[in-house]
């Protein structure tokens, strides 16, 4: 299949990027925010959202300067064949790392939640199968699938949020500034890498109908993700209190276990986790597809499909490397997310170089 196959509209783009980013909230990330901010964990999410929106602006400007092109083509045009390719390889490597750690986290989550006696390799293999097929079908099909499954995912989220509202004690949200304004601000900026996956939009830039569609998708997607992160973090603090919430490996799952619909249906967490599976599958599939397309673009291949299977084997090998879940959490918190800031800065760097070297947009036209 061609690298630029399919066209995504604004609504599909927003939903896709929102689901892609918000899927991580079912994992350990809310605990990171609460650890950093204490009772002001939701403020860390707020700072992170604003910073991510600002950092994404250069990516939008870059997409508008090079309409209808993916980041691979843009990078080679702006930074030359060697540096440009190296930058894309760097991004692909980071995305591959993010896929690996997220997949392992999801596997651990599902083992705890649903299938305690199932080997991780089996769950990993099933998810990789979904990723392979999704990438094979293409970005357009992924966006449409996300659109169809979106109500189910939202139900999975809203059930957790709404059914736990009665358990919230407002007093747990105080002291209001948590670990202090400077800590909140610094933590928020350091966790901006949580939205770094948005950069995949640029890798798949050629699939968006116009650059304004890409802009709307990215900005609205990040904004909605931020709002969900704020609500989720606040709810967790309100229900568990900051110290307890920060201790949970999968805090939202623990919230889900508290959901009690009625005597006829209890312990719904397995059902809710099934709904979350869709979000996780979308998240991983989009990242996986973006890696394949990005690599194909940087290697000047006209098609990405030949790269799907080798990449899948690579992911399957890497995902079983961490010894335990704690290694995954530490690697993600201490390495991947800080590096994510750098990944978000690459479009800014390319934009500056493009402006200096007068590449793309009005410069080319003149």
């Amino acid at each position, binding site marked *: 299949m061609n690298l630029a196959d399919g066209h995504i509209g604004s609504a599909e783009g927003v939903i896709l990027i929102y689901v892609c980013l918000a899927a991580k909230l079912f994992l350990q990330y809310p605990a990171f925010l609460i650890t950093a901010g204490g009772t002001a964990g939701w403020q860390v999410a707020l700072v992170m959202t604003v910073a991510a929106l600002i950092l994404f602006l250069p990516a939008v400007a870059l997409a508008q300067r090079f309409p209808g092109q993916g980041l691979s083509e843009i990078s080679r045009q702006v930074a030359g064949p060697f540096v440009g390719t190296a930058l894309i390889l760097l991004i692909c490597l980071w995305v591959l790392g993010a896929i690996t750690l997220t997949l392992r986290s999801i596997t651990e989550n599902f083992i705890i939640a649903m299938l305690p006696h199932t080997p991780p390799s089996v769950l990993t293999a099933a998810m990789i199968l*979904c990723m392979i097929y999704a990438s094979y079908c293409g970005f357009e099909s992924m966006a449409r*699938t996300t659109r169809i499954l979106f109500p189910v995912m939202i139900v999975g989220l809203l059930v957790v949020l709404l059914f736990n509202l009665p358990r919230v004690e407002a007093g747990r949200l105080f002291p209001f500034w948590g670990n202090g304004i400077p800590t909140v601000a610094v933590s928020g900026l350091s966790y901006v890498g949580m939205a770094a996956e948005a950069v995949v939009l640029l890798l798949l830039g050629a699939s968006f109908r116009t650059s304004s569609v890409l802009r709307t998708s990215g900005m609205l997607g990040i904004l909605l993700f931020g709002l969900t992160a704020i609500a989720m973090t606040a709810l967790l603090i309100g229900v568990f209190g900051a110290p307890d919430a920060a201790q949970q490996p999968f805090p939202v799952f623990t919230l889900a276990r508290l959901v009690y619909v009625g005597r006829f249906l209890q312990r719904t967490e397995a059902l809710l986790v099934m709904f979350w599976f869709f979000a996780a599958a979308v998240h991983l599939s989009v990242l996986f597809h973006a890696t394949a397309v990005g690599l194909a673009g940087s290697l000047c291949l006209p098609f990405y499909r030949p790269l799907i299977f080798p990449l899948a084997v690579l992911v399957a090998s890497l995902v079983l490397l961490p010894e335990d879940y704690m290694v995954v959490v530490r690697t993600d918190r201490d390495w991947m997310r800080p590096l994510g800031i750098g990944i978000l800065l690459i479009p800014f760097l390319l934009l500056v170089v493009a402006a200096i070297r007068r590449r793309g947009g009005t410069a080319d036209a003149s």
Partner: protein
Amino acid sequence: MQWRQWLRQILDPSASFQEQTFTLGDRGQQPAAEEQGPFRLKDAEARTQRVLTHIDSILEAVPLGEAAMKKAGDLTPDLDENRRRLEALFRMPENKDLIIRELQVATQPPTRAVVCFMEGLSDKTIINRDILQPLMLLAHLDHHLDGQRESGPTQFTVDVIIQRLLPGHQVSEKHSLKEVAEALLMGDTVLLFEGQRTAITVETKEPPVRSISEPKSEQSIQGPHDSFVEAFRMNVAMIRRRLKDPRVVTEILTVGQVSSTFVALMYIDGIVNPKLVAEVKQRVDGIKVDTLNDVGVLAQFIEDAPASLMPGSLTTERPDRAAAYLAEGHVALIVDNSPYALIFPITFWSLLQTSEDYYLRFPFGTFLRFSRLAALLTSLLVPAFYIALVNYHQEMLPTELMLFVAASREAVPMPAILELVIMEVTFELIREAGTRIPNVLGSAISLVASLILGQAAVEARIVSPLLIVVVAITGLASFALPNFLDSFAIRMLRFVLLIAAALLGFYGLAAGLFILILYLSSMRSMGVPYLAPLAPRMRGAADTILQPPAYTMEFRPRHVRPMDERRQKPITRPWDPRSRAAEEEPDRGGRP
């Protein structure tokens, strides 16, 4: 000598076996192709003769001009030769279907002629009354176009015959044996005359058809009760009766080298997207096959994904439904001898709709659609959900129910998945048997079989009682799906999800569903995304799961890209004060 043969059979069984057993070629007989040699030679000879005759007639026509050259064919002026060739072409005298009647046309002097038609395909009353009688009894009355009788021999021409002697409503000239054969096979009557290179065909078609009856698989309480029949012309007429618009076009295509089946391509010019018509025509024209018997076969040749479980076209036996789709900008294909129309393009949601939805008030229509969606989910997911629940996620059940399930399953030695597969397969067998058994017995036997088998299976401790409930609900839900092919696909996909759930519980079920929806998202029907207009979302999305009121559906669905998007005026209830208020809104009329 009888005893010798008997002795030989005992002593040499193989020899006797060869003599007695008929085989088609697996015991070293002479290849059939070699036996066909003389017949092929004969055919080749006939073809060569026809080519030579064609060349002769062209040479004769050259001095007469271009019009004459166009009429030059392989028929000869020799009536006996033409008759001989026709008989050879139709494998006479073995073939008894072709009737050849020799006669003298009552001209002055009389002219020899033959009348040919196919037994069973032609209307004999028309042949007797409107062909034989005028030619044999009335031809002497007046042979001249100007109406003035002349003395002396008549100048006999085909034109005179057509214009004065044959009162048939469709009469045409044929100049080649191939055209003559085609006309005969369609049920027309052919006239050959001595001294003429031209044959005359008269429309006398009367193929065996059944009368219009009620739909069998798309019944409705409200709405028309007629359904398509096997005669495609009647089917086209039934649609035309509903669309009295001169822009309705019926193109006739022919498919099948042996069957020469007519395929009617219907659309409304000015509404349908011309690209769609061109694509459908191209795909139908591309079919190179010997026979085409049904729309189901045609669909396999032209669908985007013929191997897919989900249908890429809509098969309907209701003329009102076909007409409604045409009015929306779709195309319909009607195959001769098939009581169904094939609609292109379609979406997944159209498989869950019936024409009755639109005939009911919108709350009822919406309720019906929700019921069908529930039926779809039940039919697809309930067995897999049950297996996941029983095998992996027992904690979700209330304690009392869980204890009951455990107690009912205690006596059953088999794993739940095996129980379920056995019952599902049994249910499919009952369903299939119910379809094949004659109608009078079918429903009774199905009912008895399901009741007795279910009861007996529980008592024999092969399955648990709860499982019977699961299978029954699933089966009932699958009957509620309005499209036969869709129902079939869902039944098969149910087994796939069942296996996924048996392997990994809800995780496997979710993975299976994700892959299924991805697959549906990547499908297209004649270039239209299968899940449109919901994914991608377009205008017309309201008419998928919900049933909007008829007076609000102002536009044709966007996904078929019609040339004329608006199907009704913005205000369709002008007498209604609410409509007048809406009319006064500035953006009401101009909404794109």
